[in-house]
């Protein structure tokens, strides 16, 4: 893999880059089985997590990943920072760069912010989710999880269900899976699934169509109420129309399909409780693989080189 400074989108990666990062994730995961779960790969390097939006799993996953590579991690807390005083992103970054950070892991509600930061500083910038644009580390952990389960991604069918419009996960994960040869379809309410000519992904309309298409993986997206100012669909309808109900779970079970979800799960909305206990529910595998995928991403980026994004 050629030296690369940032990871902003899946699009900017070559096929070779994608395979390299996925392959190394396997090696990273092996470290977890050892009694000392730490390697000195990033010893002496400093990692900053800069989350402008609330996050539990992505932030802690990156922090654990950085610790396991022996990096020093600083957490920038926004509620007590000058950001609440209206400081521009550029000025915040200038301040942080004078602290000589090697890696900045950033999440922001505005699409496009990580690229702005990446252009503005020498540190390696990793996009941990920007608006509805991209979430590349999630894409890697999803691809890793599917590959681990099925051995190969090419030829697999994955349906992504829910709020496609607001979802950076749908964008990045569908992209990496298609690049790796999977077939992807979207399913969800009309107001939340952009037309196929814009997305390049076929749309299924009902669960009946999903079962007929017979995907290997059903990937449910979280209903992101915090992003939605005015309702896009009647909330009371969602579980019955688009969620995995107990009846649908039985059919999923019968067809041996896997269930994935980027978390956090809204129980009773996207998934019924029983679905979380289902043997092919991969939600916990996703969390574990998230650490390995993020270790691999950190390992393969080179601060101070030219940006590819």
């Amino acid at each position, binding site marked *: 893999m050629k030296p690369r400074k940032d990871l902003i989108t899946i699009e900017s990666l070559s096929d070779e880059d994608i395979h390299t990062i996925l392959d190394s994730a396997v090696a990273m995961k092996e470290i977890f089985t050892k009694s000392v779960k730490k390697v000195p790969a990033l010893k002496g390097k400093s990692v900053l997590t800069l989350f402008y939006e609330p996050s539990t799993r992505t932030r802690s996953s990156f922090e654990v990943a950085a610790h396991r590579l022996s990096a020093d991690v600083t957490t920038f807390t926004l509620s007590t920072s000058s950001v609440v005083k209206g400081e521009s992103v550029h000025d915040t970054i200038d301040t942080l760069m004078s602290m000589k950070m090697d890696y900045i892991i950033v999440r922001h509600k505005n*699409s*496009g912010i990580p*690229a*702005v930061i990446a252009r503005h500083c020498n540190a390696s910038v990793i996009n941990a989710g920007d*608006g509805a*644009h991209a979430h590349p580390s999630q894409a890697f952990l999803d691809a890793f999880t599917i590959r681990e389960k099925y051995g190969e991604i090419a030829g697999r069918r994955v349906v992504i269900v829910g709020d496609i419009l607001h979802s950076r996960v749908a*964008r990045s994960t569908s992209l990496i899976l298609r690049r790796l040869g999977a077939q992807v379809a979207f399913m969800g309410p009309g107001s939340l699934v*952009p037309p196929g000519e814009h997305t*390049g992904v076929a749309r299924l309309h009902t669960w009946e169509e999903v079962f007929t298409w017979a995907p290997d993986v059903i990937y449910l997206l979280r209903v992101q109420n915090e992003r939605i*100012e005015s309702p896009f669909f009647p909330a009371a309808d969602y579980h019955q129309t688009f969620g995995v109900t107990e009846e649908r779970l039985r059919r999923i079970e019968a067809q041996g399909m896997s269930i994935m979800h980027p978390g956090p799960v809204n129980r009773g909305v996207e998934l019924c409780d029983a679905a979380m206990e289902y043997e092919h529910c991969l939600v916990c595998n996703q969390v574990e693989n998230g650490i390995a995928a993020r270790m691999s991403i950190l390992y393969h980026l080179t601060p101070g080189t030219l940006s590819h994004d």
Partner: protein
Amino acid sequence: MTDTYITHATWAPGGHQIDLCLAPAAESLDTIVLIEGIPLPNIKKACPSGAMEIPEHAHVIDASGKLLMPALYDLHTHIEMPGRSKRECIIRAGEAAIRGGVWGMLVLPSPAFRFDNGASLDSFRETASVRSAAEMTPAGCISLGMQGLEQAPYNTLAATRGVHVLSDGDDFPADILMLYRAMQYAGELELVFAVRADVPALTKHTYVHPSATAYKLGLHPCPPCAEEIGTETLIRLAEATGAHLHLQLVSTAESVRIIRHAKERGVKVTAEVALQHLLFTHEKIGDYNTVFKTVPPLRDKADCEALLEGVKDGTIDCIVSAHTPCTPFSKKQDFITAPVGMTGLDTFLPALYTHLVEPGLLTWWDLVRACCLNPEGIACPRDQEEGVPSTAPLLLFDPQVSHVVTEESLVCGALNTPFLGQELHGAVTLPLR
């Protein structure tokens, strides 16, 4: 002060060669010379090339190979640049206009230039008359503070400050009842309501045309129906009140169709399109290029084509620059945070020529109609009614000259032009004396 003779110029709208004798700027002539129906001031004589008797030692401009035409009038400019003084904004916009072949412009109200009272209009006119190289006509506010809630003192603005056009910048008034009553009231004062059609509830927090670009960049799409519903609504208001409606920044094919129908049934409506909406589509945004962040957003190719067709058949009366200078820092921010708009004055005529006239999409006559006669007629309607000639000076345009737009070549003080680094054809000589 002596007369200026211009010889062997090609009259752009007609294509034939003419010679002219221009009176000195200080000398104001009562006579109007009509060239192909276009009234022009301060011309002593015009005749086919070669027929002019030129006295010895006269000041002669040999315009061989150059085009002669009325200078442009721009009906949509914002001249405020946050952080810069009002005086500097006026000076730079005036210089930029002259560079781009624009002799006069309608300046829309903005937070710094809040034309909702006599004092701010007086102070603006005073500064502009001294500092600006180009004529600046302020548009009065529709509502106090451009808040869209309470009407501005139209009678004061119109009767004592000579305001002809009312506008709240690019904002659609928040209260439609306020607008309806304003149009009833100020329509009788013969004021023009310049409004951008919109349904704010549908376009709040939206940034791009619904498209593959919107999906790819994860930016909320701005539905074209918002503009179209707004267009229908405004036309109904104009019909009901009899006020002259001027639709600003028309951007969709369907809007053009709606306006065409309204004109057919005699509604007092005129419309403008920004050059950016004729030339560019949403694909230009690429990887969040904030220069191409505009309101309304850049649309599809079919929209560009329909808008151009609208200009040609007269449905769209004017092409405007929608000049909006932004500080370089503000446009370096992320797409959502960055302000909207492009600059357009510096490059206006060369860009129109390079991208529309030279490729044969518009004729010189279309351009003169859409960029000189119509916009001036809307901004200064009384002048025409009373038979006062157009005050547009003439300019010479040399289509043989090309230049690359660079930071140094821009005088407007901002860099948010889509033409930076590009070659544009044509050089403007304005004024001629």
